[in-house]
């Protein structure tokens, strides 16, 4: 017993001594500048093939180009949000990127307390009261851009991504009837996707019929968090409306719509990220996804901050700055893509980049039963 203990002790002693000798070399990261970038993801993992991963990838690409130090914190649960942000603040990080709506309040609070640090909140439209504190009544009476001039909320022009998805949907439809199902019609981002989808589909085929449905009128769980309900609802929708493509804009409820599409032998289109990677169970019928290019958005934002060209407030990402797009057309389904599809997509994307293509109606973000 004592023999074993002695061996263990001497092992530890060796480790400590060796560590004391080399710890200075082990901790220093190669760095060409004094800039330090910290990323706090949402709960989960940093290789989730969605916002966590792409935000980190974007920040890392920017850091590499700038020769900056980068580190990531992955909260184990919500009790880590504030503490993880604060640990970067205490370590004198210059730019702190936080990922997703759930970290919104923690980010705003930290930005208010640390006016000299840049904060980048991915997929958040900062809503503050007149003092610059987070406003949970969503009255948003304060002007975030002036109250918190170093807080940038990254937002996307979803209608452009929806437009591109609409072109693909119209191209692969044989019946000329396609469908889109959203969560609730009060969410501007969801509505923008769907308005863009309609216009995009009509641009490819003026005679296309786009059937629209909503999972719920107000129940957020049914709308965005219930794939089982999503599948039941969508199965009915597909049968009644006779659509042969379904575009889902409803988070995990929408993934149920993709399952329903697969079961019905029709095609599905994913949303936000390349769902071919995030929702493999629908791979056999998923043709593409309307994508937010989170990585490019974070990369550009961080680079702009380093180059001192960034401004606080909402930063909009669209085709012009490579912020939205469509996922690679899947070769894994039975679909044969029309030969003119790629050309139409390229033309539309080019027109969006030059700002000449309207992808959203006048009431952009407000659904009025089109």
């Amino acid at each position, binding site marked *: 017993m004592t023999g074993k203990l002695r061996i263990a002790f001497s092992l530890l002693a060796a480790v400590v001594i060796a560590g004391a000798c080399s710890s200075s070399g082990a901790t220093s990261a190669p760095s060409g500048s004094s800039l330090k970038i910290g990323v706090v993801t949402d709960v989960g993992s940093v290789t989730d093939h969605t916002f966590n991963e792409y935000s980190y990838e974007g920040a890392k690409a920017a850091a590499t180009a700038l020769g900056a130090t980068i580190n990531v914190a992955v909260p184990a649960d919500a009790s880590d*949000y504030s*503490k993880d942000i604060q640990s970067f603040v205490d370590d004198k990080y210059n730019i702190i990127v936080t990922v997703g709506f759930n970290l919104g*309040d923690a980010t705003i609070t930290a930005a208010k307390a640390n006016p000299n640090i840049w904060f980048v909140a991915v997929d958040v439209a900062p809503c503050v009261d007149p003092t610059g504190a987070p406003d949970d009544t969503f009255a948003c009476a304060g002007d975030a851009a002036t109250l918190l001039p170093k807080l940038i909320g990254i937002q996307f022009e979803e209608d452009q991504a929806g437009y591109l998805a609409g072109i693909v949907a119209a191209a692969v439809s044989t019946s000329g009837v396609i469908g889109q199902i959203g969560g609730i019609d009060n969410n501007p981002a969801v509505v923008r996707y769907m308005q863009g989808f309609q216009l995009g589909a009509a641009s490819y085929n003026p005679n296309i019929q786009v059937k629209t449905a909503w999972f719920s009128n107000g129940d957020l769980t049914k709308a965005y968090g219930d794939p089982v309900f999503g599948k039941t609802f969508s199965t009915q929708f597909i049968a009644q409306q006779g659509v042969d493509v379904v575009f889902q804009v409803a988070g995990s409820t929408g993934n149920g719509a993709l399952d329903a599409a697969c079961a019905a032998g029709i095609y599905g289109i994913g949303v936000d990220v390349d769902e071919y990677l995030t929702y493999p169970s629908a791979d056999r019928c998923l043709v593409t996804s309307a994508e937010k290019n989170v990585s490019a958005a974070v990369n550009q934002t961080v680079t702009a901050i380093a180059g001192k060209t960034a401004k606080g407030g909402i930063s909009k990402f669209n085709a012009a700055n490579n912020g939205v797009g469509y996922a690679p057309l899947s070769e894994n389904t039975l679909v044969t893509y029309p030969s003119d599809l790629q050309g139409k997509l390229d033309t539309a994307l080019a027109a969006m980049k030059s700002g000449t293509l309207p992808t959203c109606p006048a009431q952009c973000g407000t659904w009025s039963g089109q």
Partner: protein
Amino acid sequence: MSGPDTIQPPLARARKAIVRAIVASAQPIAEPLVAIFLALVVGAVGITVFSGLLAGHSNFDIGLPAAAYLALLGGVASPNGITSTLNYSTPLILAGLGVGLGFKAGLFNIGGRGQFLFGTVGAMAVATTVGASQSSYITVPLALLAGAAFGAAAGFIPGFLKATSGAHEVVTTIMLNYVFVFVTYWAISGPLSLPNAHQPITADVTARNAALPIIFGDVQHPAYAGILLALAAVPIIWVLLYRTTLGFEIRSAGANPDAARYGGMKTNRLIVLTMSIAGLMSGLAGATTLMGVVQQIAPGYDTTVGFDAITVALLGRSNPVGILFSGLLLGAMRAGSQTMQVQAGVPAELVDALQAIILVFLVVNALRRWLDRRAAKRGSTPSVDAGAAQAAEGVA
């Protein structure tokens, strides 16, 4: 003992007695300490072996473990680390006391996760409904009470099932965890969700006068008053266990349920009561976490406290004072993990691995002791002392 000792001089006898007393009193502390030490050694070996996989490190970087542990310590010693240690320890101590109480009664409560979450729902419900209209002097105690009551209700169910039908609490608490996870999901995205939000999210407790006061630190490094509750709970549970009839009955039922029943104790009532108190403690853990560090929750909110509390209770050998220290230790490890990752490049998940390894060593020891006891019962070991010696050997 006294026979052969009479030939020894009195001084030597006294010295021997003192050594025996020290060994006896050190043994319950020694076992967890050795488990922690061995876990650190295994962790160090793990870091060294896998160092090549980490960015910026060579294969078998023998200095990395020390760098990692030093960074972990440094992280704990920082202002953020000290306050975070207290904040993270709060639910671990509270829920750990509940699990430990269960162990004393011979009950294995794995339902901490569900009880914690249901307690969170209770506190959030108070914050959402009465919060804005009342001062924090009313809302905070009310929300804590609701958290405790919801947690107790969640613990009552498996206790009641065991008392009435004999359904094993391990099975029912694991299954009920899922029930409460989904109840919580529903509550957050439905009735507790902010009406104007485009995505489901609850109110911020600060805006509803339901945030726990900050006892020291500043707004950016807050130590919340929950730790006072946890510190107060330690002597309360200790007195309950060792100075009340109920505590005696709980310990008797745990040591030998048949004898307890034969002695006239209502063991079914004890089971229900113990599980309810365990649930109450976990519910309180959920409420203090919500009203302290978390503040606002979105669907998918979950916790590892329920399971970590089992480690805490085992490491503290179900003794309230032991649980206090093991809760602080696990809280500190979590508080320092981020600094370790940032400064030494070793993933923060290492602390989860260390916790798991500690647990493995503790369980191995418990198993060893149990096997020894069985062997002693069969008469293959001559004395109880030899059994204790074997248990001590098992430690090393």
